Every structure is written in C-alpha cells, then in structure tokens.
C-alpha cells in the first residue's frame, strides 16, 4: 500500500435521468496495478470506466488522475486510453495507421511514429502485420491491435472494457496470459472491466466487486475468495455453500449458529452479532470433509449428515452434490490417486473446521 495512487475517485455519482447507476463511489487505484471492476451486468462497472475515460460526465464527485482533477476534461484531454469491447478499430485504415492514429494527432515526427508503432506491434507480436487491413485480422489479432493502438500513447492508465468478451474460450485464456505479459513489460496501470470472475481472479492484483452501483468489496483475489464480506460476494466469486440460521451463543472468539438440528461454530471475526439474529454461513466446496457415515458416532457440531445425490467427474477433480436435511451441499475434491469415488446414494457426513466457514450478516 506504499505505492502512490494514480487514479482517485471521490464521491463519484452518476445518474441518467431519474436512474442513479453509481452511488457515491470512493476508490483509489495504485500505480502499476491491475485493478478489475467486477460485477454482474448493470452493476455500473462499465459506466464507472467511461467516467474515468471521460465519455460521460460525473453527476457528482471528482475524478483525479495523477493529482490533477480531470472531472471537467473531455476524453482527448485525459492521459488515459481505452481498449473497447468490440475493439472499435478504424476499418478504413490499415493496422499501422490504426496504431499511429494517436501519435499523428500529437504531431509526432514521422520517423519517431514509425519507430514507436513498430515497437508496439512487436510487443503485441504483430510485427509483420502493419500493412494488413482490419478486416483481414482474426478476433485475437484485432484485440492485439486495439491494445497496441491504446498503449502506443503511453497512457497513465489503460482502460480495458471486457476486452475478451468477443473471443472464444481458448484464445481468451491465451490473451489473459498475454495481457499479464504486456502489463509486466510496460508497467502501465490497468483498469479492467469484466463480469467474468475467472478472468478477474487470474488477472487482478485487486478486485473491486460492484453491485447495483455500489462497491461491495475491494481486495486481492485471495482475500475476496477466503473472506467474502457479504452473501453477494461469497456467491459471485467461485462456488460456495450457504447455510442460514440464528445465532444461539457468542463466545469471545466463536459464534454459535443453530443450523437445522445442529450447531455450527464459526470465528466471530469481530462482526457484532447478537443472540437470535439471523445470519448466513459461507463454506467453500473444497473446504468440506466428506466421509462415509458408517461406523461414525452421532455428532451435531460443524457437521451435516446426508446422501450423495450426484457425482460429476471433471478430470482432475470430482464434484459431488450432497443432500442434507438443511441444504444441498456442493463438495469438491481432487481425484484420488487410486481413483476411488463416492457413489450416488451413499450415506455420508460432511464436516468442516470452524475457520473454514465465514459468518455473513448481510
């Protein structure tokens, strides 16, 4: 957290007519990081990016880039560049002229433009493609040209608006690795908009999870996955099991929650709950331990008895659905070396360590 902030948003609010799509957003983006704005469609992530780019004026609040208030500047006056969702490459220009567009507007001398464009085309591995027309490019190549066209201007911040949405899965994974490499080689700050949690997890230094025009949670992918602060966050990032119940007792460090006929103990984590309050518990599928029930004694603490309902073999891992009186649990384990698996209909017990569950009050 010692890095300087390159972008700061203070109280940014955006309304289209009577519809407010962003509510009082405060956000600091650090020099050189990849920050992802993640959320379902309509959560305001794209609008927030367009506010930073300058395509939309803020209704309230300020946008600061490198200490300068740019709230009232038009897109051409802001030191940021954008990669558009459908690339928005100029169809009447070839690859070279597309990439050179920004530098020509800045009236760079010709030989410097040629040098910079060539350098950038090599960076995105399209060194030989300068004279190609846009319509001759594949989706992945067009994506690279869009990247080069933005990055050649050496923006303080590169904005990427769902840049991989139009690509098929295989190219998408390849482009994610490419984006990471390009980020490493240029050191540019990336702000990346996506609704895809996998993209966000793979790519980001930090994720900003948004919902209904507000920020739900900010953190590294690991923090967000291990310590979701809300039901929304727990459900949006990865698979999760949600149990609900009422608080039955509060220890100094463990909160007891009545779930079904048993009790779940969960670290209090400083969340202020009172006895009788309805709460939720999030437990990741891989945090469960599932054993055959035969020969096990009765227990009602941090455990649920159930029946294997469904088994999905996914190669390196196996995903089970376990029906319990309370909730159908998802359980995931890596495939065991001897290949042994539970079978549908088997009676099992799912249990977990207290610190594997997260207490959620909202």
């Amino acid at each position, binding site marked *: 957290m010692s890095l300087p902030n390159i972008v700061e948003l203070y109280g940014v609010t955006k309304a289209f007519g009577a519809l407010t799509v962003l509510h009082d957003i405060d956000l600091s983006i650090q020099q050189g990081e990849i920050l992802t704005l993640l959320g379902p469609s309509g959560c305001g992530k794209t609008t927030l990016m367009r506010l930073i*780019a300058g*395509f939309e004026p803020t209704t309230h609040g300020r946008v600061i880039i490198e200490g300068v208030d740019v709230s009232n500047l*038009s*897109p*051409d006056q802001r030191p*940021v*560049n*954008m990669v*558009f*969702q*459908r690339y*928005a*490459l*100029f*169809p*009447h220009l070839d690859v070279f002229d597309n990439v050179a*567009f*920004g530098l020509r*507007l*800045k009236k760079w001398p010709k030989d410097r433009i040629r040098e910079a464009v060539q350098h950038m085309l090599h960076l995105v591995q399209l060194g030989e493609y300068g004279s190609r027309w846009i*319509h001759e490019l*594949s*989706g992945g190549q*067009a994506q690279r040209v869009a990247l080069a*066209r*933005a990055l050649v*201007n050496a923006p303080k911040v590169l904005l990427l608006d769902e840049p991989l949405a*139009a*690509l098929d899965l295989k190219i998408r994974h390849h482009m994610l690795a490419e984006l990471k490499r390009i980020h490493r080689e240029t050191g540019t700050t990336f702000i990346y908009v996506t609704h895809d949690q996998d993209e966000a997890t793979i790519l980001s230094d930090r994720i900003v999870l948004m919902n209904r025009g507000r920020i739900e949670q900010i953190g590294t992918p690991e923090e967000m996955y291990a310590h979701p602060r809300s039901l929304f966050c727990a459900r949006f990032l990865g698979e999760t099991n949600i149990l609900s119940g009422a608080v039955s007792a509060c220890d100094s460090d463990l909160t007891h929650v009545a779930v079904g006929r048993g009790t779940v103990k969960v670290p209090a984590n400083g969340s202020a709950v009172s006895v009788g309050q309805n709460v939720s518990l999030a437990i990741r599928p891989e945090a469960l331990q599932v054993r055959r029930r035969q020969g096990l004694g009765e227990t009602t603490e941090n455990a649920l008895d159930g029946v294997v309902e469904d088994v999905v073999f996914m190669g390196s891992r196996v995903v089970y659905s376990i029906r319990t009186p309370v909730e159908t649990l998802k359980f995931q384990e890596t495939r065991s070396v001897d290949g042994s698996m539970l079978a549908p209909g088997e009676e099992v017990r799912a249990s977990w360590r207290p610190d594997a569950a997260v207490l959620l009050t909202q």
Partner: protein
Amino acid sequence: MLRFYVWLYVAFLYAPIAVITLFSFHSSPSLTFPFEGVSLRWYEKIFSDTTFMTSLQNSLIVGASTALVTTVLGSLTALGLARLKGRIQTFFGLLAFGPVALPGLFLGIALVMLFSQMGLQRSLLTVTIAHVLFTLPFFIEAVRSRIEYFDLSLEEAARDLGATPMQAFRLVTLPIIGPTIGGAAILSFALSFDEFIITVFVSGNDTTLPLTIWSMMRRAVSPDINAASVISLGLSIGVILIGGLLVWYQRRTALNARARDTQA
C-alpha cells in the same frame, strides 16, 4: 411458355426506349418503319437549338445546386437521427421520410402558394428549393441505412486517442460514410434532373430540360425530340448507375464487416 411471358414483359418495358433511341439516329424525318438509315442530324439540330441548350444548362445548374444543398442538410439530418433513440428516432425518421408519400401535384401547388406568400419570384431558385424538398427524404433514407451500421464507438475511440470532435468526424466518420454520401448526392442530382410535375408549378421563365422536351412535344412531333429524350435518358441513367453502384458497394462492405463482427 413462362419464358415467352418474360420476353413479352421485357419488350413491354424496353420497347419504347428502344424505339425512341433507334429513331433518334434515323436519317429521315419519318417516325415510322421502315428504317431508312443512320445519321446524327437530329443530334446536330438539337445541340444547335438554344432553347434546348439553355434548358439543359438550367437542369445541370438546378441539379448540382439541389445535390449540394440536399447533401449538406441531409447528411446533418441523417447523422442527427442516428444519435436519437427509440420512439423519438422513429418519429423523426418518419417525419423526414414522409414527404415521399405526398403527390407531386400537391407539393407543387403548396409550394406555389408558399412562394407567392413570401413574395418570391418563380425562378431557378424556387425550382432548386422545391427539388431540395423533393430529394431530401430519398437522400436521408439512403444515408441513414448506412449510418445504422456505423459503430459510434469508432468516434469514441478517436476521441480517446486525442481527437477533438471535429477531428474525429473528419478523420473517422467522414471517410467511412463519405462514399455513401457521395452516392446519395448523385442520386439527388438524378432525381432533380428528371423532376417534372413540381417543376411545372414552381418554374418561371427559366425552364428545365424535361419541361422543354414537353413543350417541344406540344409544338409538333419532330424527330429531334427523340434525340433530346435520349440525351436526357443517357445522362440520367449514367448518373443513377454511378450513384447506385457507390451506395451498393458501401452497403456491401458494411454488411461484410458486420458479418465478421458477429462471427468473431
């Protein structure tokens, strides 16, 4: 049998044109068969006829002015319409295209009334104003169908890369939609060049080519009318072909681009 009908249909469509073209090269004044030989005498005659040449010149002036004014007004309207949304766009789109449905007779009378109310003398100016009114809806429609395929994020991309609104228009929007506008401009010229009914009402002493040919017909059926008509026909067809080709080519490239986008 079917083939016979098709030939009959084609003959029905093109026989008059064929006959008039043929007899414009006839060496004798006779307008009936048998055909007695080829000559350019009627073309010589018509090209030395000052009434014809003046009206041809008038038609070219009116056509060019109409195309120019229509292009400026129509392009702005079409670009504006593309930026409207939903019902407002539908409403103004219909409003812009509406005059197409009005009978020329009605437009002619309405314009005469308007011009006399305004105290405007009937002249080539009033003809041009009338022709702009007549060609504008066609122009807007032709350009609009192309602009609908124009990706507005291209302008945003240009702005993002440092272009002012004017630079974005000049460097991106105009080069992409320019050929369509050119084609539609040529189309306006052709429409104006052929326009007859409205022109009858709003022209003063300066007549246009269709009016001159019409009045020649009334004086006497003379073979030089054939030549005059063929010249007019040739000019119109040539101009429409060029314009149509431009518009067609533009739409095809736009559609191809869209097909690729959806594949990707």
